[in-house]
């Protein structure tokens, strides 16, 4: 089938090495710097609070938004993290997830709103999201290393790439699902498009948008092990060293830690849905 040779590999390498890094290098450095300090700051907060206090906070929050069962599970789960001596790693993973989710929300929700309001934006955004979700994550790990080096920052970036699509998609869907007659009524009374968004569309789309945020958090957690391959600290790196040393026990201990965090975050964010 090789009627001609497509030098995609060479082109890509030339593009990245000869143009992208020299030209936009400082830009990426700046972004990397910002993400890096955000990451450090959150990590600092999570580690400076004594585990006991943080556990109490999480359990109380879980009780408040999701009930007794989830509170009990959170307590047991966090006790487990401490007992297998993975508290610090758990907090590192959480920090990466928080930063990545924060970026996903800050960038994803406005794009979702925009594509709900404009068909042409939606036509462009949709294939990009498909691409972000289906491209094997290893593929963008490589440029992430080139552009941001090793460690937490490229991990945040690749987690962001993988986890943002549901946030955009469900924001778009949520706004499009707002009943047409309600939007029409709001228009008839003289709403500007900003008032329409803030007072009608976003409140009515909120449950769907929250489902998107929840999905984003779940996807971010599922990237923990892959992100560890580019040097992200945390539970993922425990699992990774379990794999490389064929240490089943270590892999399970780290893996269970990720599951515990996933379930706690999932139940709490689901519980955050507005009452109306």
């Amino acid at each position: 089938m090789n009627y001609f040779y497509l030098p995609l590999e060479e082109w890509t390498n030339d593009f990245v090495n000869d143009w992208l890094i020299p030209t936009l290098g400082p830009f990426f450095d700046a972004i990397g710097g910002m993400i890096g300090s955000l990451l450090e700051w959150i990590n600092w907060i999570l580690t400076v609070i004594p585990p006991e206090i943080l556990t109490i906070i999480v359990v109380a929050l879980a009780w408040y938004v999701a009930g007794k069962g989830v509170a009990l599970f959170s307590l047991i789960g966090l006790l487990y993290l401490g007992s297998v001596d993975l508290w610090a790693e758990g907090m590192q993973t959480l920090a990466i997830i928080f930063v990545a989710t924060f970026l996903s929300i800050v960038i994803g929700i406005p794009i979702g709103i925009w594509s709900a309001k404009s068909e042409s934006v939606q036509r462009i955004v949709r294939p990009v999201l498909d691409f972000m979700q289906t491209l094997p994550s290893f593929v963008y790990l490589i440029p992430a290393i080139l552009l941001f080096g090793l460690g937490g920052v490229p991990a945040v970036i690749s987690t962001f790439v993988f986890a943002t699509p549901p946030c955009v998609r469900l924001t778009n869907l949520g706004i499009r699902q707002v009943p047409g007659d309600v939007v029409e009524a709001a228009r008839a009374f003289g709403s500007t498009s900003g008032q329409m968004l803030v007072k009608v569309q976003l409140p009515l789309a909120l449950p769907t948008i929250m489902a998107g945020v929840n999905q984003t958090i779940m996807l971010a957690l599922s990237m923990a092990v892959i992100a560890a391959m580019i040097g992200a600290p945390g539970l993922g790196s425990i699992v990774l060293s379990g794999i490389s040393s064929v240490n089943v026990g270590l892999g399970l201990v780290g893996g269970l830690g990720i599951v515990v965090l996933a379930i706690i975050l999932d139940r709490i964010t689901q519980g955050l849905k507005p009452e109306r």
Partner: protein
Amino acid sequence: MKKIEVRNLTKVFGPSPKKGVSLLKEGKSKDAILKESGNTVGVNQATFDVNAGEFFVIMGLSGSGKSTLIRLVNRLIDPTSGSVLIDGEDITKMNTKSLIETRRAKLGMVFQRFALLPHRTIQKNVEYGLEIQGIDTKEREEKAKEAIHAVGLAGYENSYPEELSGGMQQRVGLARALATDSDILLMDEAFSALDPLIRKDMQDELLELQDKLNKTILFITHDLDEALKLGDRIAIMKDGAIVQIGTSEEIMREPANDYVASFVQDVDRSKVLVAENVMKKPDVVTSSKDGPRVAVRRMKEKGISSIFVVDRGNVLKGLLTIEDAVKAVDLDLTLDKYLRQDYRIAKKDTPLEELIPVAAETNYPIAVVENERLRGIIVRVSILSGLGLGKEVTNHSDKQLDEATPIEDPKLGGDET
């Protein structure tokens, strides 16, 4: 004083609306334009005035363009051509800013499906129009309370729309439109989604309110009775065009054409309805497989005293009475011996007028027969209900009747969205 002036207002949907407009000006019909250019005519060169304080009703069946027309008045839909003057200002030429100003200050609207904000309380729903105008909290709370009080919902301020019945939700819709104090109320089939008793109450209350408030109301409906009851003047629409404008009296006395006449004439239903419209699905006994015992049981089940007997092809064989069937059971004979032929038959298109004397003299149901096959039966009750309540006939129809084309009834316009 003229409050709303609508001039040659036209809306054409489709690939080439401008072409549709020029075809309309040539006098082409809605169907011809659809065929020729693929454009759908929504509203065809509508022209009318609504005076200040007038209750103006636009009446038409579904698809007549009335819902489109009311949305052209506040430009929820942009017209293809023509103009709408609100207090002398042409809304079709306004920029976004003055359009929004006009909607806020002058045009309240009430919707068929209420269209309340489900995440807000009644109080907050009614406040909505004031809130987006930036009116301060205290003033808008007061105005909203007044409006809620005016529609009789005091005490429900903190409920949510879903907790209220349809009639109450529509009161909220009305209060929302009243709260902004706009001179004009646009009401799009406002009572059509409510059940008849509530609808009547709402009509009465709206008239009472109107006495006090003296708004300019543009009201859309598919129900002639509602139009006659509410409207100071009525416009009747067909295929996007207004065919007649006048007071109830004028429209009833001098209908502009047959179409209008067909609405308003106190139609003698017995001339319009045919057998097919009132017949019901018959209970039958099949001669080849069912015996007298089956016949007796079936009549007992249905509480009837006679039953038609057909063969497998549904060809009518005769009538069996309960007495004969019981005799047959006792003597252990087949049905054939007891079949009677002294029942009356009618065709599907026999007018009800001719069936009335027939129904009066026979003791059995009338068989509606087509090609010797039994299609339905008519009992006295169905003739009477057909005469009295045109609607009930189609509502009570069962399978047999559904295949029949229901008669054109002006009140059966159905919901239009």
